[in-house]
C-alpha cells in the first residue's frame, strides 16, 4: 500500500478538499444516517443503558489508574496458558517483533483480522518491506487495501466508498473477480468470500488485535461480523495479537458490560455476529503457538494527561464518528490518521503530543464542541472537555517558554522550537482579555462601535428580515465569516448604554 497519511495538510485544508467532493458527502451522509438510526433503536431497547455507560467508564478508569498491576497480571495469566508475551514501546518495536516471529517460522504470508493497533503501527507496510505479504481479510479493509486507499472510519474503513465504487475496485484489482459482478452488496461479499477462502485454508500465521484482554484469566476477545476473524484465530498454527496496553480489563465478569455496550454502539446490533474468546493455547483446537505484543506507542503519554487519559477508555466502537456533524461532512481522511472523527481529534494529539506538528495541532479545533459525541460515547468520554483541554495545551506549547515562567513539561519526542512571533489569533485573544477584564474598557469600545453603527445605518442598504442592517463582507479574518454569511451591523447603542440611559426601565 503506497497510500499514506504522512504529510497530510492541517484539518481545515484537508476538510476543504473533502467538502468539495459531492460523491464523498453523499456516501457519508447515507452511511452515517443509516447507522445512527440503527444505533438509536437498539440503544433505546436497553432500559439500563445509562448505568451501563457509567459502569463501562468506571471499569476502564479503575483499570487505567492501576494499569501497571493489571498488565502484570495479564502477562502472568497469558504466560501460564502457554502464550508468549512481548512488550513494545513504539511502532518500530512492535513491527519488528511481529516480523521476527514470521521470519523465525519461514512465513512469507500472513492473514490479518481487522485491527486498529496494527493499522496504527503501519504493520502491513513494514511486513511488505521485509518480504512478508499481509492479507487484510475484513471486507472493508480489503476494499481499502485493493483500492490502494486509506481507511476513513474505525469500524467501516471504506465508508467513503459506495457500492458502485467498490464493484469497480474489485473488478480492477481482485484476482478472479467475476466479469459480471454486480454492485449488490451480497454479491460483493460473495466475491470477497471466494477470493479469501484459499488464503484462510492455507495460512500458517495470523495477526490480530484484541478488543479486550482479561487480566485475571489471560483471555483475549475479538468482536467481529464476517467470520474472517474466526478464520484467522482458528485455522493457522501461529497467532500473533498486537494489543494496546489500554485494552486490559480486570476480570472476565467485567465483559458483561462491554459486550452490551460495544455491539449496540458500533454496528447498531443487539449483538455482532461473531465474538471469539481464547485463553492461551488449547491443545488440539486452534493455533498452537501464541504471541501477544503489548503496545505502548504513546499510550503512557496519554495516560500522563490527567484530563486526556479518559480517551484511553475508548473501545473503538465509532459511535462518535457516526454522530459527528463534522465527520459526516469531511469524512475520515481529513483527520490524517487511522483514528478519525472526534476520537481521532483527541487521541492523536494525546498519543503523539502537541506543539510539534501543525496537522496534529489542528485536530482539537476540528470540532464545533456540539457534544453529540459525548452523548453517544458508551464509555462516557467527555469529548468537549478533552478538546478544550487539548486546545489549551496547543496554545501553551506555542507560548514563549519564558512567558509562562515554567519548565517545559511537554513530553514531545523532539525538543520543540517554535516561532516566537505570536499568531494574530494570540494577539486578538490578548486584546480581548485586556478589554474584557474591565467593564469600563468594554463600554468605551462599545461606544466606538455604536458610532460606527450609526454611520453604517445611514450607508448600508441591505437588511435582514426584521429590518436589521447587515454587512455582506468583512475585511481581514472576518472575510472567512462573510464568504457565505451576512453579519449584522453594530447596533447604534449597546445594551449597557441603553440600561444607563433608561435606568433599567423597559
Amino acid at each position: 500500500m503506497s497510500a499514506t497519511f504522512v504529510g497530510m495538510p492541517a484539518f481545515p485544508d484537508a476538510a476543504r478538499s473533502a467538502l468539495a467532493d459531492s460523491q464523498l458527502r453523499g456516501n457519508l451522509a447515507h452511511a452515517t444516517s443509516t447507522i445512527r438510526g440503527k444505533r438509536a433503536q437498539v440503544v433505546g431497547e436497553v432500559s439500563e443503558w445509562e448505568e451501563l455507560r457509567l459502569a463501562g467508564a468506571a471499569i476502564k478508569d479503575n483499570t487505567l489508574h492501576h494499569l501497571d498491576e493489571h498488565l502484570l497480571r495479564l502477562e502472568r495469566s497469558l504466560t501460564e496458558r502457554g502464550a508468549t508475551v512481548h512488550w513494545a514501546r513504539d511502532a518500530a518495536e512492535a513491527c519488528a517483533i511481529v516480523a521476527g516471529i514470521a521470519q523465525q517460522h519461514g512465513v512469507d504470508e500472513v492473514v490479518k483480522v481487522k485491527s486498529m493497533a496494527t493499522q496504527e503501527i503501519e504493520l502491513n507496510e513494514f511486513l511488505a518491506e521485509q518480504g512478508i505479504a499481509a492479507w487484510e481479510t475484513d471486507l472493508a479493509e480489503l476494499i481499502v487495501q485493493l483500492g490502494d486507499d486509506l481507511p476513513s472510519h474505525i469500524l467501516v474503513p471504506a465508508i467513503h466508498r459506495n457500492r458502485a465504487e467498490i464493484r469497480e475496485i474489485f473488478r480492477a484489482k481482485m484476482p478472479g473477480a467475476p466479469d459480471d459482478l454486480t454492485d449488490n452488496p451480497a454479491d460483493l461479499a460473495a466475491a470477497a468470500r471466494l477470493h479469501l477462502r484459499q488464503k484462510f485454508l492455507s495460512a500458517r500465521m495470523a495477526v490480530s488485535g484484541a478488543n479486550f484482554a482479561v487480566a485475571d484469566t489471560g483471555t483475549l476477545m475479538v468482536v467481529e461480523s464476517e467470520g474472517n476473524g474466526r478464520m484467522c484465530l482458528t485455522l493457522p498454527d501461529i497467532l500473533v495479537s498486537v494489543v494496546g496496553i489500554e485494552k486490559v480489563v480486570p476480570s472476565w465478569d467485567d465483559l458483561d458490560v462491554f459486550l452490551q455496550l460495544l455491539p449496540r454502539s458500533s454496528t447498531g446490533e443487539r449483538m455482532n455476529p461473531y465474538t471469539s474468546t481464547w485463553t492461551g493455547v488449547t491443545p488440539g483446537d486452534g493455533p498452537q503457538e501464541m504471541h501477544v505484543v503489548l503496545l505502548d506507542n504513546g499510550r503512557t503519554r496519554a495516560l500522563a494527561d490527567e484530563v486526556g487519559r479518559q480517551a484511553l477508555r475508548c473501545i473503538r466502537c465509532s459511535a462518535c464518528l457516526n454522530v459527528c456533524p463534522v465527520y459526516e461532512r469531511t469524512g475520515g481522511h481529513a483527520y490524517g490518521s487511522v483514528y478519525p472523527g472526534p476520537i481521532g481529534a483527541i487521541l492523536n494529539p494525546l498519543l503523539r503530543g502537541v506543539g510539534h506538528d501543525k496537522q496534529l495541532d489542528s485536530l482539537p479545533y476540528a470540532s464545533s464542541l456540539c457534544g453529540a459525541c459525548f452523548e453517544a460515547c458508551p464509555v462516557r468520554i467527555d469529548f468537549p472537555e478533552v478538546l478544550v483541554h487539548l486546545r489549551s495545551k496547543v496554545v501553551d506549547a506555542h507560548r514563549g517558554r519564558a512567558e509562562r515562567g515554567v519548565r517545559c513539561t511537554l513530553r514531545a519526542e523532539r525538543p520543540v522550537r517554535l516561532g516566537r512571533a505570536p499568531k494574530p489569533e494570540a494577539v486578538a485573544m490578548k486584546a480581548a482579555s485586556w478589554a474584557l477584564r474591565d467593564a469600563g474598557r468594554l463600554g468605551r469600545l462599545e461606544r466606538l462601535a455604536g458610532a460606527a453603527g450609526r454611520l453604517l445605518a445611514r450607508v448600508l442598504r441591505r437588511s435582514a428580515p426584521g429590518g436589521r442592517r447587515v454587512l455582506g463582507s468583512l475585511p481581514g479574518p472576518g472575510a472567512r465569516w462573510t464568504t457565505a454569511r451576512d453579519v449584522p451591523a453594530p447596533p447604534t447603542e449597546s445594551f449597557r448604554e441603553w440600561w444607563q440611559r433608561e435606568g433599567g426601565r423597559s
Partner: protein
Amino acid sequence: MRAALLVTCINDAVFPDTGKAVVRLLSRLGVDVEFPSGQTCCAQPMVNTGYLDEAVPVVRSFVDAFAGYDAIVAPSGSCAGSVRHQHGIVARRSDDAALAAAVAETSARVYELSEFLVDVLGVDDVGAYFPHAVTYHPTCHSLRMLDVGDRPMRLLRAVRGLRLTELPAAEECCGFGGTFAVKNADTSVAMGADKVRHVRETGAEVLVAGDNSCLMHIGGMLSRQRSGVRVLHLAEVLASTEGR
C-alpha cells in the same frame, strides 16, 4: 424576587434588543431585574480557543460583578454552560483558591433563561402573544451541556398566536461553534447550509433559538440566501405582546 441579568457580551454589543426583551419579560413576571454594571464576558471565546491564561482575568471580573446575587439569568445556553462547566477549569489554572471558591459560589446560581422561567419562577405561560409561524432550533449547549430539555418548547407552546413547526434534524449542530466558524469556516458553512435547508423546509417565518451566537451564523446564511426567514431570540418572542 431579585435577579441579576447576565446579558452576555454578544447581546450587549451586537444584540441589545435581546437584553431589553429579557428585562421586559422578567419585569412583567414580577422579577426585580438588575444589571451588574461590572459584567463583561463569560470568557468562553478564550477558553474554547485554548487561551486559559487570558481567560483568568475575565473570569475574575465575572465573579466580582456577580457576587451576592441569588439568581443570575442569561439569555444564552452557551454562556450559562460556559460559566457552569468551564469557570472551574479557569480557576484551577489560576492556582488561586479564592477565585476557585468564588467561582463555585457564582456558577451554581447561573440559569439559562428557560431554566429560570420554568424551574425558578415555575411558569410555562409567560403571557406572550406572537402571531407567526415559528420553528425552534435547540442549540447544542442548551441541549447537551445544560440539558434544558423541552423547557423552551413548553414556553413556546404557551405563546398565543404562535404556530410551531418541528424543525427536521433539530438536534444537529448548526456549525457555529465559536471560533470554529472562522478557523474551520468551510466545515462550519457546510453544517450551516444543512441547518438552513431544514429551516426553510418548515416554511416558518421565524427561526427561534436561545443563543444569538448560533442565530447570527444561521441568520447570516438565511440573509445571504435572501430566504425571507427572520431569526429571533427566544426572549424576544416571549417578551412580545405585539400591541396587546
